[in-house]
């Protein structure tokens, strides 16, 4: 357990708590039970997709395709339910498989075609959105299935179901990253791909696997998106891929690969959503929300990069040297 709840979690957790405190102190309605359960709904889609995005980032890759893939998958799901008469219980697993296959496709081209993931997923970002428009003449499809909505809005013991999805998938992801061969290989590939090859790790297979996971988790997100709005639309999921990456980055994942904690991504997503929620409750326009989101990303990474300087400054202000600065200086010795 020591491994999962390591020091990499403290920063993102503290950031989340501080942000929550600030919002709670300035916004009356924030702590209403209704609002809090609303938070888990709001965070669920981006946080679930961010599991895959984070694993790709751990291998030093990037996944820009998830937002468009959500749109494409909601359209395929809508097509299946509305026009092809496929029952929901069959359509859902099929969507998960399609998501995994799309991820596999991207992963194979990236790893075996030796094309940087930034390029392959940028191409997918553009192409999937186009592909989504080929369904139903590019129009959204509404009123899919009455049984779809409870997947998102349903509750168990008064707690919204998406909360349980988050617990389940983040639990699974934390297990994979910390206790399995695959998790270790993901960190190894991101940490030093050349050394990974020389130690017999199948680097390409590991890279491909992370994209399959990313595709699968995007499909989970797409199902929740369809359930939330009981519809499919080629316009869904715009900039969702960037929000997922932002969650990973605010959670402290290094875009250079090899470093980060998957649970911190959940904290990162929560931090972002709490800020958005606070601004919403105070009726801030969406323009302001975007500006604030941009600043949060900058601040989160900045605090991480300048940690040594900040703690040295704190030490000077409060008249004692802190352990953070000691570590940084020793490293340079």
């Amino acid at each position: 357990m020591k491994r999962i709840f390591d020091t990499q979690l403290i920063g993102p957790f503290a950031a989340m708590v501080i942000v929550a405190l600030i919002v709670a102190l300035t916004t009356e309605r924030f702590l209403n039970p209704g609002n809090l359960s609303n938070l888990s709904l709001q965070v669920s889609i981006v946080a679930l997709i961010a599991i895959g995005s984070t694993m790709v980032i751990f291998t030093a890759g990037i996944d820009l395709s998830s937002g468009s893939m959500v749109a494409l998958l909601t359209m395929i799901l809508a097509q299946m339910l509305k026009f092809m008469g496929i029952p929901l219980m069959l359509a859902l697993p099929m969507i998960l498989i399609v998501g995994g296959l799309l991820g596999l496709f991207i992963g194979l081209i990236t790893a075996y075609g030796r094309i940087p993931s930034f390029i392959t997923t940028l191409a997918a970002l553009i192409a999937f959105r186009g592909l989504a428009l080929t369904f139903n003449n590019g129009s959204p499809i509404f009123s899919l299935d009455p049984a779809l909505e409870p997947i998102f809005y349903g509750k168990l013991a008064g707690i919204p179901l998406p909360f349980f999805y988050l617990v389940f998938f983040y639990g699974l992801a934390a297990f994979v990253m910390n206790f399995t061969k695959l998790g270790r290989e993901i960190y190894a590939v991101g940490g030093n791909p050349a050394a990974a090859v020389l130690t017999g790790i199948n680097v390409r297979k590991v890279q491909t696997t992370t994209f399959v996971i990313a595709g699968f988790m995007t499909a989970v997100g797409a199902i929740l998106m369809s359930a939330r709005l009981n519809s499919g639309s080629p316009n869904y999921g715009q900039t969702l891929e960037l929000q997922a990456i932002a969650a990973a980055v605010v959670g402290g994942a290094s875009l250079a690969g090899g470093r980060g904690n998957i649970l911190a991504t959940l904290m990162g997503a929560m931090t972002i959503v709490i800020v958005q929620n606070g601004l919403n409750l105070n009726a801030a326009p969406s323009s302001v929300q975007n500006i604030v989101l941009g600043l949060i990303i900058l601040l989160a990474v900045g605090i991480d990069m300048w940690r040594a300087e900040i703690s040295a400054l704190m030490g000077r202000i409060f008249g004692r040297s802190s352990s953070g600065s000691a570590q940084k200086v020793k490293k340079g010795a």
Partner: protein
Amino acid sequence: MTTATPLWEFVDISKAYPGVLANDKVRIKLLPGSIHGLLGENGCGKSTMIKTLSGVQQPDSGQILHNGQPVTISDPQVARDHGIATVFQEFSIVPTLSVGENIFLGNMPRSRFGVIDWAKVHSEAARVLAEMDVDVSPDAITGTLSVGEQQLVEIAKAVAMDARMIILDEPTAALGEDEIERLHQLLRNMRSRGTSILYVSHRLDEVERIVDEVTILRGGKVVRASGETEINVSEIISAMVGEDIGEHYPKEQNATAEVVMEAHGLATASGVTDASFALHRGEVLGLGGVLGSGRTEIARALFGTDELSAGQLILNGKPVRFRREMDAIRAGLALVPENRKYDGLFFNFRASGNITAASLGGLSRLGVLNLKAEEQATHDLIRDLEISTQAEEKTVNFLSGGNQQKIVIARWLFSDSDILILDEPTQGIDIGAKIAVYKLINKLTRAGKSIILISSDHDELLAMSDRIAIVQHGAITRTVEASDLTHDDLVRASADTTETNLEEVFA
């Protein structure tokens, strides 16, 4: 050489890091036209001293005198303005730029209109390289050169700025014997022109050859000051380590008659032309030859990195063909690469992740790792190999080079490989750590493992190998008992070549 005013004098320089007094009143006098060796084990404060002298950091106390006048070296630019050039152990060249651009990086000759004067970059770079007797085109892309040539480009930067004082930190770590000789000649030329040179090296044999004076540091303090110590290897070692270290090369004879691997006429597109040898159980087979002779390429061919274009590899009597590294590792081979920083270590892992990286399959069941077994095995290996216990808690970037190298070797101990290829295993690590690596080689051969040792340190290669295969131009020309060879034989044998052959190889 004059005994007049020192060019530079560093008086009572102290520098503390939290928890460590890295430099404790260090005094060094640098005379013009003198090569001054700064020696000591890893962690003795050499790097700290170099950083202070080159303006990378400020001392906590102490005085720096230039021609007798106190000065402050507030940043690296000030150091350059004072004529101090530093060639750091870690290269500071830009691999995608040309040799000429690297030599004048940050100091490009400009024409009247402020535009870079490319003709001058080319001609000046060519002049510097010719002066250094380095056969590299100023237009070559630096990243495509061999490590040794890149090191020479690094030194060319210092030569180009007409430095009056040059600090060289482990300049020969990546160089072959003839390149070292060329560098030494260059340093002697600079010395005769009055340049003051501060020379940091772990290769004590070469220190003996080139250095005029030594200062030895231990635990941040000067234990032998300039001129105090005779330049004599065994005395230097005992001053550095602070105790008698005993046998420098503790070689054990563990070779048996049983052949574990045979290579017949191996060739690759990467430059192996004809490599044949037999490796016995418990044997250390040394590959001798100059840098660029194809030793590393033979290792790559054996390990499945480079595809064989001809020849046959036989393992335990059975023909094998490795299409990639994974196949070789499954068959019981291991490679400790020349460049542990770039190809060997996972800096995001602690010792445990690094040690088990090649054995994750065996350590897991249905894909789930046995973390308890991992911690236990890591703990045992850290104890057995005398690796710093910090490695259990900290990521390996916090460890010294010697500890890092032991961890890379520990990886293959843990994976229980039968044949280990060690490419420059003691490069850039201090004496104590080197001896630990030699003991590790003994431990491995005693357990019936076989080792292919590649080393540019001829003394080490002669002392630690049972037999030595001479490599020239990608071919193994002959294999001889190590005890039948002397240092000079090895130098001559590996350099024995005709002009035309050389041109073919470097064309």
